[in-house]
């Protein structure tokens, strides 16, 4: 119960951050990726703000053996750079560049009643499910 409420609050803060930073504006994102055109470096500052807070806090959080509410930290133990990591990330970048949406802003844009956002989220789920299908082959 407590962890569900925390997840909701964390989600609201994340959504406010996406909106304030304009990550939620696909045109702004496309202008960031458009390095040879009308380049807008703002999103570097979004990463800078997010990484400053999280890199510092993670150092303290991981001094603990477990989270405040829960038995263990759910983090990946993978450390090797694999082909699926790089190919998947390259495909994600292509989709990001085609749309201006990564997954967080796509979901958050539903709060702006964006039809584009609805189509984007459905297409993302189609991509998730198709990967399960690829994996079974």
């Amino acid at each position: 119960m407590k962890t569900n409420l925390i997840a909701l609050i964390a989600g609201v803060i994340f959504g406010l951050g996406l909106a304030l930073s304009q990550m939620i504006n696909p045109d702004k994102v496309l202008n960031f990726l458009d390095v040879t055109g009308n380049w807008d470096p703002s999103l570097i500052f979004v990463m800078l703000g997010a990484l400053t807070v999280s890199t510092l806090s993670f150092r303290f959080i991981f001094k603990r053996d477990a989270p405040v509410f829960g038995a263990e930290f759910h983090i990946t133990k993978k450390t090797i750079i694999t082909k699926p990591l790089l190919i998947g990330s390259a495909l994600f970048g292509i989709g990001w560049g085609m749309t201006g949406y990564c997954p967080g802003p796509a979901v958050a844009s539903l709060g702006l009643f964006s039809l584009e956002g609805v189509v984007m989220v459905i297409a993302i789920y189609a991509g998730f499910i198709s990967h399960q299908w690829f994996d079974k082959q």
Partner: protein
Amino acid sequence: MENFTPISALLGGALIGLSVSILLLLNGRMAGISGIMSGLIKPTKHHIWRFLFLGGLIIGAFIFQQLSPDPLVLRENYPFSLIIIGGFLVGLGTKMGSGCTSGHGICGIANLSVRSIAATITFMLSGMLTVFIIKHILGLTA
């Protein structure tokens, strides 16, 4: 660079960093959005937190849009074919690559993961190359 907004970008980014820190410290979860989304394909009662986090994203954006003196104007006439194909690639790619901008670009890098640094450089470069091709070579977008 007439639309450069470093202050709101920094502050918004700091809020994202705060959210990621809260979810990790209290719940022990990494706020990688693609992972939180794809975990819902086979939902169980242990996954209610995923619905709530994603619902929170929507609520946060909604609140900002209602209260902001300068709300976001949604773009019009962007080709839906690009959204459908691109959205599919975002889903497939983040599932195959185990993460997106938040999972690799923020949580992973904050955790000093070499995998996440490699993934972030890869999707940034491929995104930039894609915009170059779509906008400047093919001329599909304005």
